[in-house]
């Protein structure tokens, strides 16, 4: 039995509680089934129907960590046993400083971390409510030095990366810069000059504002070419 009626158009903007469909469909992100079996939106966003899946692509929201996410955090507190990291989320990240084993302590000390440092860290474990463990003990992770930190709405991170990193490579190639996009919406950049930085910032605002309209990559690409040629 696969009787299902979809009440909205694909990519339509819906508000929380708006009925989306009835019948047998798999629930994706940010949708729920009410007590009458009607599938409804949880957030303000765009409807995304793929075969038997229905989900919402939210248009705004805070960052909720998930295990395995790459985040860019700022050290907000260092105590004897933990480093507290702000990752722009309701939950603070913690990097424990190992006790006892001398080798590990020395390893931790080699990063020379201080208050205000910017870290590229991975979410190692998260219990969903309070304990959020981060790690910087992996290839490519650790302190970010130099460059600038930009921010976008965490809900727009998938747009900044694009399908198969298409948007990210456009941004990288056109501005000839190093770019790290993290899941929590912080973007670390190292540009050849200030001009590219300012253009990049404008481009990110454009992506944020126009993420719900198709043809975003092409528009961003031509926007970058135009701005950089002046």
């Amino acid at each position, binding site marked *: 039995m696969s009787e299902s009626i979809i009440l909205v158009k694909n990519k339509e903007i819906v508000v929380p509680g708006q009925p989306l469909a009835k019948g047998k469909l798999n629930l994706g992100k940010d949708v729920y089934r009410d007590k009458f079996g009607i599938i409804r939106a949880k957030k303000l*966003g765009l409807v995304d129907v793929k075969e038997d899946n229905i989900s919402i692509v939210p248009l705004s929201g805070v960052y909720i960590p998930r295990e395995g996410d790459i985040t860019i955090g700022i050290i907000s507190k260092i105590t004897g046993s933990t480093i507290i990291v702000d990752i722009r989320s309701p939950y603070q990240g913690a990097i424990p400083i190992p006790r006892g084993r001398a080798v590990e302590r020395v390893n931790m000390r080699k990063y020379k971390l201080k208050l205000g440092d910017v870290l590229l860290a991975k979410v190692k474990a998260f219990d969903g409510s309070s304990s959020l463990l981060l790690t910087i003990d992996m290839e490519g992770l650790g302190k970010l030095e130099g460059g600038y930190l930009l921010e976008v709405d965490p809900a727009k991170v998938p747009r900044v990366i694009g399908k198969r990193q298409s948007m990210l490579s456009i941004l990288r190639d056109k501005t000839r810069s190093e770019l790290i996009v993290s899941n929590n919406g912080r973007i670390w950049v190292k540009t050849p000059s200030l001009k590219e930085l300012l253009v990049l910032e404008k481009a990110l605002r454009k992506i944020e504002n126009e993420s719900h309209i198709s043809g975003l990559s092409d528009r961003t690409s031509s926007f970058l070419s135009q701005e950089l040629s002046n």
Partner: protein
Amino acid sequence: MVMPLYIEKKPEVLITEEGIRTDGRKPRELRPIRMTVGVLDKADGSAFIEWGGNRILAAVFGPREVHPKHMILPDKALVRARYNMAPFSTPERKRPGPDRRSVELSKVIREALKPAIFAENYPGSVIDIFVEVLRSDAGTRVAGVNAASMALANAGISMRGLVAACAVGRVENFVICDLNHDEDMWGNADMPMAMLMESEEVTLLQIDGPMTESQFKEALELGRDSIRFLYEMQKEALKRPYQVIERSVKGDL
């Protein structure tokens, strides 16, 4: 020199026999309403509502870290609401700060919105709702609920549905909706109500003044109709900024 006092006078007729009210409206007519979202840059979500003479700003922050720490709920988000009137919002200066009335309204607004929020999706965090009345003209609590519900959706918080609210009441033998200042002061009954639109569940119902059973039923029905209309306005207001961008982008190409 003696400052002239602000003296309110009861109008001679609150409603004519033909059902025309002091501001010229019919019993089932709302005052002009305009809703805007995303008006505050620093808040996660915000909304502004102009309803008759009311001007109300709502801001939502969160889910964010709970302070003070002892208020943390380990299994769900804490929802806090604050209703506040600006000192310049009333004809005579209102003493700033919380008073009996605003503490009650804060509670009422919080409880009207709480059933709509999926608090269990954000354990150990807090969602702060601020309702600031800049200019008041009867029915600020319901206007505040409308604005706060839009601000929540604008902040991207998981919700069961939007909450819309409207006041209904009675003046003499007429059941009326959206009471104005005179009707609020000298009318016979006043009944603010709010509904969670997904299930048409009533989340706020207060009543001040007597009504017969049939009048109450009529008022409830009228309130439901008005709320449905307000819900459509909310939906339109939430989508509008995105449609404006879409139009300007498509116009470019």
